[in-house]
């Protein structure tokens, strides 16, 4: 799945890092959903997650919630920008 591949083009400095390593899905997505609305529009949060489902479910959550998925700057790291 391309979403799991490191994507250097998406590399940005995140405004916040959410460490969800060791958590099983859907917990990383729940933590992302809880945290993102607390940040300013345009802010970027980097989710660290080692559950293999995160590579699929974080982009899927962004699509369902109309947030911007920026890509995976490294394995097990997923950048999301608050769009609304």
């Amino acid at each position: 799945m391309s979403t799991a591949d490191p994507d250097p083009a998406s590399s940005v400095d995140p405004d916040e890092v959410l460490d969800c390593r060791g958590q099983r899905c859907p917990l990383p997505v729940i933590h992302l959903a809880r945290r993102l609305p607390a940040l300013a529009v345009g802010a970027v949060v980097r989710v660290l997650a080692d559950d293999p489902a995160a590579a699929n479910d974080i982009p899927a959550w962004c699509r369902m919630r109309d947030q911007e998925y920026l890509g995976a700057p490294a394995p097990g790291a997923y950048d999301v920008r608050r769009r609304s």
Partner: protein
Amino acid sequence: MAAALDDGWADPDKLYSAGRRARHLLDAAREAAAEAVGCRPEELTFTPGGADANRRAIAGLMRGRRRAGDTLVHSAVEHSSVLHAAAAGPAVSVPVDRLGRLDLDEFRRSVAAPGVAAAAVMSANHEVGTVQPLAEVAAACADAGVPLLVDAAQSLGRVPVPTGWSVLTGSARKWGGPAGVGLLVTRAGVRFDAPDPVPPVPVPLAVAAAASLRAALAESAAEAARLHPLVERIRTTVAATVPDVEVVGDPVHRLPHLVTFSCLYVDGEALLHALDRRGFAVSSGSSCTSSTLDPSHVLVAMGVLSHGNVRVSLHRDTTESDVDRFLAELPGIVAELRAQAGATDL
């Protein structure tokens, strides 16, 4: 069936009278299954299961075409038995869209590339029910001169048998027959070099497989007409009554009996067990329900939510009131699980 149990114990390859009776039963079963599939009896072999048939189909096609090439082109959402066989050599996985439909342009390009030995595209997906555009797939293969394996495990006995394939496989368990019997159908003239002889399938099992396939086909039109609207009811009601749910798969080009959806913020395993306690036996493609902890490769290929996933498969004993009870209880179950996870207002 009773005759098969009385006479089918003998070795059909032996010449004593019990062996000859077993041979007659096996030949009759093969003829009946062939008639149901729409092939000649000599093109059809009973195998020890559908996964075994897929493995043999791919190995036989690849060996038969080794002078043409060594690459297998397959859809990204094939059954794991096909993907395992594909992993034995060079393979091209053709993507699907969000509804699980094969990317036909990409498939045409891939299958026409040099070095392609064979292609494998399922008739319909076992997890999300999406039916593949097999007429276009078969035309692309014919244009490229590449033999096509169609894994019809999900559709045999439920919808009309596809056409245009070189090799077709099926699984008796999936049409309501016995476990441990599959079908491997190889069209006459297809270059096929079987890797090893197929172990004999017990005659009573072969007879049961053929009889159940005929029975399933005989009622398939009526069953499809009954189940198709029930699945439609599940799709629309779940989307309307459960917040933040993604109903998965092609809403139109789909199997009549299968529906899959994913509930945001819900643990798939917890949902499966909660439904089980209320008498609903469902499956899930969520990672927490798999032995490997990986999410379903089908859901990932489609890019749809994989957690909180439930797959509902309706069968001949499923009634309308079963479906209504499921739909009445599901919203409360999902709400309770979200409350337990502290994910109610996200």
